[in-house]
């Protein structure tokens, strides 16, 4: 090991590396590219993972959404293509029958209306909701509060609006809380302003009003447009989704095999798909990265082998001057390790730089689900160590080739 700390060893390596510039450059590019790809791909994969995680972030991922469509099978005297609606009765039945499975259930009714405040107006979605919505999809409130049970009981004419609606309908600097605005010509008091999450959001800019108020104002009677359900911990959500749909089919005289009558989305399943995609991407990344790395290392070995051949005469001279096979081997291996190390470090540096630039470019852009693209230090360490080990092993071949010939044969080489 002493030779490692000998400045002469490095002097020799420096000399030969400088001498064989093309070799040096090609080698460095080979390995650099490999580790660069590994770093960037892993970082990007991680960034996407972070991005999707955030996307689903403040949404309860164990959610199921259910709505009605048209039947596709005639049943019990009904024609196919029948339209029907969810009702509050359904909600009560589900709540009692699935009390173990269901954690939260939010029935919802929605429409689009003109919102007017003084001389400003805009067309927005209006949604009749229960306070429980805030638990399923957390609302980030800028001012005031979200709907509460009192609002429901008293069928209060109150509304919670989004930040954009506030900006569009109110003058700058006006405190919106307590102000009135007209929805469909009826006055509502603004009790809160929220910032829509930049993650998945089914509502967008919506004016939330109490479910009961909605029912009265829009005369929806018992009807429910759709519902959001979240499951208790440990519930098999897919099973719950199936069971609920079956119960609902029973309640609405829909054929049990009807595929179209009810629409539903299982958020957990959708997330699972995305997660699967991310895992697949990570796998691909590793595969590509490692393959490139190995290719890079082989390139080093190959080039070393070529240059060893080119340098046979030089090696012969060195041996005539008293270089032992060991010292020749050491030098060649050290050259290989040195080159891989330098190239690897450059690759890591450039890779990190690119990740940094990507991060800087997309961090302010919510449309691209890429957040904090980083690479684990241990992973890089392992990749790096592998690289050096491979570099050593691959360096052994030309080193061995350089020492098995008799010195005179090496010298005779032109």
């Amino acid at each position: 090991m002493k030779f490692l700390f000998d400045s002469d060893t490095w002097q020799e390596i420096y000399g030969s590396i400088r001498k064989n510039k093309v070799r040096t450059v090609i080698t460095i590019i080979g390995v650099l590219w490999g580790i660069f790809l590994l770093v960037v791909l892993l970082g990007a994969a991680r960034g996407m993972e972070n991005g999707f995680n955030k996307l689903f972030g403040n949404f309860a991922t164990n959610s199921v959404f259910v709505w009605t469509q048209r039947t596709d099978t005639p049943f019990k005297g009904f024609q196919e293509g029948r339209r029907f609606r969810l009702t509050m009765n359904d909600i009560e039945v589900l709540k009692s029958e699935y009390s173990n499975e269901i954690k939260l259930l939010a029935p919802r009714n929605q429409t689009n209306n003109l919102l007017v405040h003084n001389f400003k107006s805009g067309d927005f979605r209006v949604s009749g909701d229960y306070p429980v919505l805030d638990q399923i999809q957390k609302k980030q409130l800028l001012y005031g509060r979200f709907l509460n049970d009192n609002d429901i009981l008293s069928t209060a004419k109150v509304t919670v609006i989004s930040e954009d609606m506030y900006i569009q309908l109110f003058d700058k600097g006006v405190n919106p809380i307590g102000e009135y605005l007209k929805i469909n010509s009826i006055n509502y008091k603004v009790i809160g302003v929220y910032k829509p999450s930049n993650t998945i959001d089914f509502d967008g800019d919506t004016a939330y009003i109490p479910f009961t108020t909605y029912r009265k104002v829009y005369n929806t009677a018992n009807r429910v447009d759709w519902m959001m359900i979240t499951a208790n911990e440990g519930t098999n959500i897919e099973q719950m989704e199936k069971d609920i749909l079956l119960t609902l089919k029973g309640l609405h005289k829909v054929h049990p095999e009807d595929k179209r009558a009810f629409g539903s989305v299982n958020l957990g399943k959708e997330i699972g798909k995305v997660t699967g995609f991310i895992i697949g991407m990570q796998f691909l990344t590793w595969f590509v990265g490692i393959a490139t790395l190995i290719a890079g290392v082989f390139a080093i070995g190959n080039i070393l082998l070529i240059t060893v051949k080119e340098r046979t005469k030089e090696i012969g001279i060195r041996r005539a001057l008293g270089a032992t096979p060991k010292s020749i081997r050491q030098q060649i291996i050290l050259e290989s390790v040195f080159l891989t190390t330098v190239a690897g470090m450059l690759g890591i540096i450039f890779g990190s730089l690119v990740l940094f630039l990507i991060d800087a470019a997309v961090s302010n852009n919510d449309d691209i689900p890429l957040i904090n693209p980083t690479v684990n230090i241990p992973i890089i360490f392992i990749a790096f160590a592998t690289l050096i080990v491979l570099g050593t092993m691959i360096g052994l071949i030309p080193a061995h080739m350089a020492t098995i010939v008799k010195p005179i044969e090496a010298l005779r080489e032109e």
Partner: protein
Amino acid sequence: MIKIEKLHKSYPIGKDSLHVLKGIDLHIKEGEFVSIMGSSGSGKSTLLNIVGLLDIHDEGDYYLNDQLIKDMNEKKSAILRNKFLGFVFQSFNLISYKTALENVALPLYYKGMSRKERLKVALEYLDKVGLKDWANHLPNELSGGQKQRVAIARALVTKPKVVLADEPTGALDSTTTDSVMDLLKDINDEGMTVFVITHEEEVAEQTKRIVRLKDGVIISDELTKASKAV
């Protein structure tokens, strides 16, 4: 210093083998200045390479400094070369990307000498061959005669017991040949054993003993006038 008895060497050529050295007996004592002459292909280089431990003989005995050379592994012969032998080649064999000074210092590197010290010693030897001012030049900036003198300095820098030179003047004109021969004579005067291959009678005349080789055997071995003049 060098004792060779019934030495044989063949090169395999395909399935056949070419018998190059056919029983060489040669004794070279310490401090001798010997030249080998003979037509091309007579086996001179082969003999010198065996003496220089760059090649292995097939049969017979070879003693270098009273040590029987047999079943040497590469490591041992590398150390022996470094310790006892200095080489001068017809084609100089300098390392192209190293300066004259670094070339001369290289054998000392393999001896394990510190950089500072070996550069100092190497410079002394460059001075000795009259090339101190050329220390930091690369080989391709030197003339043939200068290159050969650098090579001689490199052969001498480890203070070897024997200097082996395979046609050291083969690529030089007569003036530079003389300067190289003067150097070799000086070395010999200092007590080093010098063993040269040459084609030129004038060169051989300047050594003290001429061994003539023909078809792998020694046909004559006599002292020169130069040796008697001393």
